[in-house]
């Protein structure tokens, strides 16, 4: 017993010391443990003249280059909100290169209002460049988000909703992915794999005129964008991340005053409309699996009032343009 107590005390002390050193209140939860992500510069690269270039550098510059390499390791161990935003912008760009935008001013302002209302009730109302939302002109049932706060919902997904609360559930699920850092986690997983170095080498060989450190940075940028888009289009996040996003969405709906069980109705329609192997069906657990997981969660919200009627008229007016 004495030994157990000692071990417990030692464990507590270790945790305390570790937390004092590394804990960052605002970025809590983003503890990245990246490997030496930049050890991939190929000195044998025939296209690179940096081996010769190095010979012309002064010792001070070489020392500065080494410092820069070290600082890169440090910088990428922790994604700053700025880094998340710039990765997110490129991920959004890739999504927008696959699907055209659906332009409807009324629908746009309606979705933005739902988004801002939800975010105002969340623990992260402000992120680096704020949140934004847009509709993709496709009947595929899908919705995407990026670490930079961009949310993109397809027309097909909107057609699966029959109330503002169901639409809010879709948006809340995407907010959850952003606020829980699922996109950045997928980069972390990718960087921990052997395939990472291979994909770095396969990255486009742009910016050849820059130093190895800058080339490495840009190629890593491209590889990280590919990691997230691969998760969004093909592999999906882990099932647990999806269930976690659903639970977070239900809680956010409740806090905002929406009817939390509305997410269930949306999943039922999705289950009916989805085509296997496409869109969300390819990257998410089945709607049935998601509903089953949520059943337990719903017990917390038994007393939630079903007040959807207050919002039904405006939903019908704004969503009408999408067509049913």
């Amino acid at each position, binding site marked *: 017993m*004495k030994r*157990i*107590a000692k071990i*417990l*005390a030692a464990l*507590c002390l270790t*945790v*305390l010391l570790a*937390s004092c050193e590394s804990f960052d*209140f*605002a970025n809590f939860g983003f503890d990245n443990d990246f490997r030496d992500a930049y050890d991939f510069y190929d000195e044998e690269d025939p296209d690179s003249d940096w081996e010769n270039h190095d010979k012309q550098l002064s010792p001070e510059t070489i020392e*500065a*280059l080494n*410092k*820069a*390499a*070290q*600082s890169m390791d*440090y910088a*990428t161990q*922790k994604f*700053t909100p700025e*880094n998340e935003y*710039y*990765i997110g*912008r*490129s991920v959004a*760009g890739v999504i927008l*290169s696959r699907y055209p*935008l659906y332009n409807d*001013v009324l629908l746009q*302002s309606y979705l*933005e*209002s739902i988004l*801002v*209302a939800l*975010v*105002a*009730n969340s*623990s*992260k*109302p*402000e*992120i*680096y*460049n704020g949140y934004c939302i847009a509709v993709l002109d496709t009947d595929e049932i899908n919705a995407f988000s990026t670490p930079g706060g961009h949310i993109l919902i397809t027309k097909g997904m909107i057609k699966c909703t029959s109330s503002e609360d169901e639409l809010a559930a879709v948006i809340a699920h995407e907010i959850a992915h952003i606020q829980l850092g699922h996109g950045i986690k997928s980069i972390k997983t990718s960087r921990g794999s052997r395939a990472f170095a291979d994909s770095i080498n396969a990255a*486009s060989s*742009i910016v050849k005129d820059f*130093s190895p*450190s*800058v080339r490495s*940075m*840009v190629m890593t940028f*491209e590889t*990280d964008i590919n990691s997230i888009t691969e998760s969004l289009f093909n592999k999906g996040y882990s099932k647990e991340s999806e269930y976690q996003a659903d639970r977070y969405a239900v809680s956010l709906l409740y*806090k*905002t*005053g*929406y009817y939390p069980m509305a997410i269930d109705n949306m999943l039922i329609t999705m289950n009916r409309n989805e085509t296997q192997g496409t869109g969300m069906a390819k990257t998410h657990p089945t709607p049935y699996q998601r509903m089953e997981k949520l059943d337990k969660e719903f017990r917390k919200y038994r007393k939630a009032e079903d007040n959807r009627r*207050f919002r039904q008229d405006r939903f019908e007016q704004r969503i009408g343009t999408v067509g049913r």
Partner: protein
Amino acid sequence: MSGKTGCRGMIRVNKKISVAVLCLFVCTTAIFAKPKKGERMFVNVQQASLRVKKSSLSKETEKLSFGDPVIIESADKEWFYVTSQISGSKGWISANSVTKHRPSESSGYSTLTGELALAGKGFTEEVENLYKENGVIDYSLVDSIENTSVTTNQVTTFIIEGNLSTGEQK
């Protein structure tokens, strides 16, 4: 006699467990500690707002920029009441919009210039500009979706009419 020894033993064991539990409590408190009054923190989003109340929809008193220092006056779970070190204005700021470390310092080697400084900052606008050179992504489309149109007043009306919550914390 043996009963007394057993009782003392139990007391000793209970004491040890209590110490361990206390240690664990202290550790947990340290990890989730709120910042203290007078502590300096820094804005870690491009623009943060000082607000009259604890809600992102309440009246904004001042806009703060990335890296601006603030002094903690009091701290709630999700909102801190702060004084802007630059202007002296006071207001509520979202706890997630500030960080203990000055953002520019976190990227390290801030005295480096040119390519060296660029590499040290991680993924930034400069890296995006270099990446743009391959022409795969049309960033103008991304810029267009980032231009949001609704105002705080419109959202507040939307919330009230829809019987929703403004998210204001008491």
